[in-house]
């Protein structure tokens, strides 16, 4: 059956869906959806065929939007996304991730929720906030946010999550207990440079063919683990800075990754030398190549947020980047050349590339 390529965007003013032509050279923009609520993450659940959007409205609070028909109709609900009345409020849903027949939501103030009815109701995976480090969790610039959820591809009991300015945690028992996984990751913003928790993970991922290999883009560098996160080593050599947000893994090659370094955390957080570039490694982070053909090389005072880069599963793989200034760039040749696919969108929080049945 033929497939449709959809680029899903979460933005500051709602969700957008871009429908790609068969040649990936033209995209029809649909939106904004979700009542122009700030959408942190627009995702697709292949099991149900539904779109899911993690949102946080300054007026109406956190919620999850659902569309069963690829954007034709939408509804929202947040039943169960709460810690109760005696603890910090949940303010935004930062990520919605399908895994093991369920949906998981990461939220601000950092925590994990699970839904088994397609996002209609949610329950708190409370053991994470029972970790002894929780009392000392401090927010990053974007808040105290659980922004990344990565499920082991074959072991349903294993999952990793990432919390800004706290670090990576892993469960090996389906969420009943959690272990910090930050050994070897540096925290330049703390006097203890290698704390157990307190590192500022920005994004991490794995390839299902080698699930013990994790890659991480952190506030203080890029890292790789070969033992499921138990230990990390610096793979920043060759990159123009230690600071960046997104990182994605090639869908077919576990050794190929992309990241988008910015100039630094306290000198503007824009493209190094104001020249936009993506950096690719073909050898698991041992070396890096700058990819910029077709990207603006002057006055690129823009950034790319942690969730705003994605790859499709076509051959050659397409790569897509959404910027903080509302541009969507795409490459049809694994980053070799780039073109502007859409402009004048609201600031982009998230990008996903999915293939659905035509």
């Amino acid at each position, binding site marked *: 059956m033929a497939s449709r390529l959809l680029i899903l965007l979460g933005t500051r003013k709602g969700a957008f869906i871009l429908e790609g032509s068969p040649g990936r050279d033209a995209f029809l923009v649909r939106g904004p959806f979700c*009542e122009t609520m700030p959408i942190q993450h627009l995702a697709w659940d292949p099991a149900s065929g539904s779109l899911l959007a993690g949102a946080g*409205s*300054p*007026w*109406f*609070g956190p*919620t999850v939007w659902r569309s069963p028909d690829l954007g034709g109709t939408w*509804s*929202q*609900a*947040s*039943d169960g996304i*709460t*810690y*109760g*009345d*005696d*603890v*910090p*409020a*949940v303010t935004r849903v930062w990520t919605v991730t399908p895994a093991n027949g369920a949906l998981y939501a990461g939220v601000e103030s950092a925590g994990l929720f699970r839904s088994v009815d397609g996002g209609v109701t949610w329950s708190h995976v409370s053991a994470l906030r029972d970790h002894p480090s929780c009392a000392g969790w401090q927010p990053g610039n974007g808040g105290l946010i659980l922004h990344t959820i990565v499920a082991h591809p074959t072991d349903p009991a294993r999952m990793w999550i990432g919390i800004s300015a706290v670090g990576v945690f892993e469960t090996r028992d389906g969420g009943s207990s959690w272990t910090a996984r930050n050994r070897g990751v540096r925290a330049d913003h703390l006097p203890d440079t290698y704390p157990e928790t307190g590192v500022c993970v920005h994004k991490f991922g794995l390839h299902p063919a080698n699930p013990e290999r994790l890659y991480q883009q952190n506030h203080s560098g890029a890292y790789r683990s070969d033992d499921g996160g138990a230990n990390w080593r610096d793979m920043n050599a060759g990159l123009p800075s230690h600071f960046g947000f997104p990182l994605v893994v090639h869908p077919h090659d576990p050794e190929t990754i992309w990241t988008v370094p910015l100039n630094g955390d306290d000198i503007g957080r824009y493209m190094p030398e104001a020249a936009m570039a993506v950096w690719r490694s073909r050898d698991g982070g041992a070396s890096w190549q700058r990819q910029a053909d077709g990207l603006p090389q002057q006055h690129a005072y823009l950034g790319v947020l942690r969730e705003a880069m994605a790859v499709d599963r076509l051959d050659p793989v397409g790569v897509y980047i959404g910027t903080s200034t509302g541009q969507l760039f795409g490459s049809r040749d694994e980053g070799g050349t780039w073109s502007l696919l859409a402009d004048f969108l609201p600031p982009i929080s998230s990008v996903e590339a999915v293939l659905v049945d035509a």
Partner: protein
Amino acid sequence: MALVHLPRSLAALLPGIPRHLDGIPGETVAEVLRALDAEWPGTWDRVCEAGPRIRVHMNVFVDGHRAQLDTTVAAASTIHVIPAVSGG
């Protein structure tokens, strides 16, 4: 039985809810919101947060006066729910 006025932006989140509702029971703001939530699930969560309290960037007025959840609602009160300009 209060008369309740809702903003367009809130009504858009709760399918089928009218913007102007008459005869809503409740002796406090909280009870009125619970009554609305019973018929239009999700109303409470969009207006209130943990505490419980009215969300920081939402305002509720009873007969023209800014109210909290425990504010008394009289038999013929008019309630306005209005998003605050501080919310964007």
